[in-house]
């Protein structure tokens, strides 16, 4: 049922018809119930007419009296009559007349617009007029106005309007429209009015207590009497007569209309609910069907609809009010207007519902997009504002925290500054120039105090730097302002602690070295026996080949143990700096050459080709010759032990920044699968298996000894290339 196109189509067709029925029937019901349009008589007796009429009369009177511009004034001796062109109030002309009586002539619908600005002219108009719509007979006016005048009486009481009597008296001056409009003077004998003239205007029975009824509005000017009255016969073309006619036609079908009113209302409701549910659903599809039309910005559709609606409305109502138009043509016009607009309304409504259902309403409309965009913008800016606020709050908090943490100092400072300002102002006020001098003196004194404290800060920083650099610091409290008393104590304590820690670690390092030395002594004694007896066994005539082989192993290992213990002691001493150095000028190139001579055979044995690039002139460095020898000896030892057989060894030197740099490069026999840092550590060798000769201490000893001699030693591994660089200051 939801997807039935037929049902939907029926709904679309029925909807305008039902709405028309509903509107018409409800109008009918309303008019019937109000009773105003049942007949002309009822209409004239209806409250609607009376209020409308009275309002217009009142407008008219008011304007006649007070307004100037478009009101025509008639000068009558000392009096001025104001009136307006009835044609300006054409909407009233259907049922309202001004009756002008002159002599025995009574005129209605006088066309005063025709330049009738003098009584003479009015007189002429009246006299020339044939007296259409006459309702004056035997000096009696039409009695059918009586009821009306009674109503007017009621109405006037209710609405409180001021009336001006012809005997120059003002009665019951209360409100006219609003108090602003008129200066009200209560119960004054004479009334000053517009142009300073007293206006004799329409008579009212209220004014004359002896007269109980308001006949009608009259004005007597000279021979004229003006009445305002109704035209009892409505113009056939007038709207009211149209309405009355229609009502009369419809009356016989009263029952049908009474029924169709609620039924149409219910049907419209049901159909609306159905359509809202069904619109957009297509058989076999879950989602709402959206056509290209539904993607056209909604504003364009609504705009077109409104333009057509307003335009056609204007045309229709202009056309309808065209007086000579045939009733049938009017009906056709109206229906066309209604149908066209209804169809447009349906189309617009359907697309709106579709869009809402497909949740595309905002996206398909320009306003929606703008709304969305501005909403996101809003959100962003709100977020930003909140962030800013948070930042600000954090800032405030940190300030507050700072205040809380340094309460005493801050409070003290605030009090001092406040006190200073107050005292300074007082001094300035009381003593004048002398006060200013005193103020300045105090100010400079304060600055001096601040500078003193800043200096203390500087000193503090300097001493901290000293501690950082490892110096011992003893601060004297007298050099600082009293605020730093605690800081000084702390710094002295830290420095002391630091010093103690250094001493402590030196001591423990020394103890360690001592321990190692002693242990090595204890190892050496049994080792001596081992070596000696192994040697003695070797000298015996051992027949057994296996025994010989084992003895050889024992000999090798005992020799290695000997070397190991010696190196251990040396490494421990070198790393703890527990050696006494005797610095002298050493020729580093000489030393290198001496050692190259020492190692020549060893290198040749392994077919190592040494390519040394040493300067001809010797270069002197400050070092201990024995320990420098140990460094180079260890490096050459390493090369002879670990370099690949039949490879080249490079020894290069260069001088830079008054430093001599010596680089030893060789190709490693084994794969170097460790890092440079690891290699520098004690007991580490290029091969982790530790089967080769050597203790693994050589490089570590060399590094320690180099550093003890104020040089640097670093090594680099690049694949199989092993590179050691040592650097010394040239003496």
């Amino acid at each position, binding site marked *: 049922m939801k997807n039935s196109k037929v049902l939907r189509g029926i709904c679309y067709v029925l909807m305008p018809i039902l709405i028309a029925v509903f509107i018409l029937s409800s109008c009918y019901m309303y008019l019937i119930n109000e009773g105003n349009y049942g007949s002309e008589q009822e209409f004239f007796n209806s409250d609607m007419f009376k209020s409308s009429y009275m309002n217009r009369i009142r407008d008219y009177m008011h304007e006649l009296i007070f307004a100037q511009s478009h009101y025509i004034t008639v000068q009558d001796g000392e009096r001025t009559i104001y009136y307006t062109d009835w044609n300006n109030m054409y909407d009233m002309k259907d049922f309202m007349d001004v009756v002008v009586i002159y002599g025995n002539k009574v005129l209605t619908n006088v066309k005063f617009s025709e330049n009738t600005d003098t009584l003479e002219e009015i007189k002429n108009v009246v006299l020339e007029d044939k007296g259409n719509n006459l309702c004056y007979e035997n000096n009696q006016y039409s009695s059918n106005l009586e009821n009306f005048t009674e109503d007017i009486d009621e109405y006037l009481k209710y609405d409180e309007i001021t009336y001006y009597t012809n005997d120059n008296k003002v009665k019951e001056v209360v409100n006219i429209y609003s108090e602003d409009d008129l200066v009200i003077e209560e119960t004054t004998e004479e009334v000053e009015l517009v142009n300073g003239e007293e206006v004799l205007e329409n008579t009212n029975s209220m004014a004359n207590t002896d007269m109980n009824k308001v006949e009608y509005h009259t004005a007597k000017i000279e021979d004229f009497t003006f009445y305002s009255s109704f035209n009892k016969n409505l113009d056939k073309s007038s709207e009211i007569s149209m309405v009355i006619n229609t009502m009369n036609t419809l009356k016989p079908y009263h029952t049908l209309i009474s029924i169709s009113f609620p039924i149409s209302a219910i049907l419209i409701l049901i159909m609306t609910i159905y359509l809202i549910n069904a619109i957009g659903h297509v058989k076999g599809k879950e989602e709402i069907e959206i056509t290209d039309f539904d993607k056209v910005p909604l504003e364009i559709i609504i705009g077109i609809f409104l333009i057509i609606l307003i335009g056609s409305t204007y045309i229709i109502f202009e056309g309808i009010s065209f007086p000579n138009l045939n009733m049938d043509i009017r009906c056709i016009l109206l229906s066309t207007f209604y149908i066209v607009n209804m169809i447009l309304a349906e189309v617009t409504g359907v697309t709106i519902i579709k869009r809402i259902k497909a949740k595309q309403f905002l996206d398909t409309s320009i306003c929606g997009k703008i709304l969305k965009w501005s909403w996101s913008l809003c959100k962003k800016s709100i977020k930003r504002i909140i962030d800013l606020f948070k930042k600000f709050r954090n800032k405030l908090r940190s300030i507050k925290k700072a205040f809380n943490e340094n309460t005493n100092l801050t409070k003290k400072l605030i009090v001092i500054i406040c006190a200073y300002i107050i005292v300074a102002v007082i001094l300035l006020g009381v003593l004048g120039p002398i006060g200013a001098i005193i103020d300045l003196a105090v100010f400079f004194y304060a600055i001096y105090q601040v500078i003193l404290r800043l200096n203390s800060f500087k000193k503090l920083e300097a001493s901290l730097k000293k501690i950082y650099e490892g110096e011992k610091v003893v601060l004297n409290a007298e050099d600082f302002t009293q605020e730093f008393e605690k800081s000084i104590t702390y710094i002295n304590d830290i420095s002391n602690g630091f010093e103690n820690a250094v001493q402590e670690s030196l001591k423990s390092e020394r103890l360690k070295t001592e321990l190692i*030395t002693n242990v*090595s*002594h*204890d190892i*050496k*004694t*049994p*080792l*001596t*026996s*081992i*070596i*000696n*007896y192994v*040697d*003695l066994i070797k000298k015996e005539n051992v027949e057994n080949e296996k025994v010989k082989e084992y003895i050889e192993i024992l000999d090798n290992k*005992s020799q290695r143990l*000997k070397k190991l213990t*010696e190196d251990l*002691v040396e490494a421990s001493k070198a790393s703890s700096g527990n050696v006494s150095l005797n610095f002298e000028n*050493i*020729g*580093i190139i*000489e*030393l290198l*050459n*001496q*050692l*190259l*001579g*020492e190692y*020549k*055979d060893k290198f040749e044995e392994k077919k190592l080709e040494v390519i*040394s690039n*040493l300067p001809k002139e*010797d270069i002197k460095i400050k*070092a201990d*010759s*024995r320990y*420098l*020898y140990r460094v180079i000896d260890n490096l050459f030892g390493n090369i002879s032990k670990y370099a690949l057989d039949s490879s080249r060894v490079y020894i290069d030197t260069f001088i830079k920044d008054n430093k001599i740099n010596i680089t030893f490069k060789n190709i490693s026999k084994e794969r170097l699968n460790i890092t440079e840092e690891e290699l520098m550590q004690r007991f580490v060798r290029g091969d982790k298996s530790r089967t080769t000769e050597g203790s693994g201490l050589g490089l570590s000893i060399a590094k320690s000894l180099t550093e003890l001699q104020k040089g640097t030693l670093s090594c680099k591994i690049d694949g199989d290339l092993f590179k050691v660089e040592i650097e010394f200051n040239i003496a």
Partner: protein
Amino acid sequence: MYNILVCDDDKEIVKAIDIYLSKENYKIFKAYNGNEALNIIKNNEIHLVILDIMMPEKDGIETLEEIRKEYTLPVLMLSAKSEDSDKIIGLDLGADDYVTKPFNPMELIARVNSCIRRYTKLGAIEVKEGSKTYKSGDLLIDDTLKKVIVEGKEVKLTPTEYNILLFLLKNKGTVFSINQIYENVWKDEAYAAENIIAVHIRHIREKIEINPKEPRYLKVIWGIGYKIEKID
């Protein structure tokens, strides 16, 4: 037959030394602490004492001091203490030599022989009048015969080695750099001398020294040069 007293608290070491030195035709007296050693010296004619330092009751240093109060016999310290300071103390207190444990038996024997020779036959080598001889301690070069004699034994050197040693011995106590040695020996501008000299020096050292690593005569001053120690 010379009498040698070996004093060490480690009996195995004493025994090992006994074995080595007996083969060299020395008579060995054994002591296991300082007091025993002093007793033996008092009651026997001892030509050399091999003395350990770290011993119970009376250690090597005290014993050495006691010995030196009465005797001039040579004392060879044999200790596991290998620090320079230990060696200096020992030598300063009157020891004639200092060998560290673990020792090379051959070195020990050589040093023992050296000490005995100097104690017993000091100046025994006769030097012919008129011949050009140069001498430092037990190192002697007879330039007329082109002979090098160390501790009474002739050492064979190559002509270059001989010239270098002769030059250094003639100027004993003076340190010469590689270039200086080259210029003086080759009488030529030093060119690419570098390690040629160093290699020769090492060879000389290996031939004339008991322990080439700790030379007694031909000393290496690392980074400066070489010299022949002046020994009276």
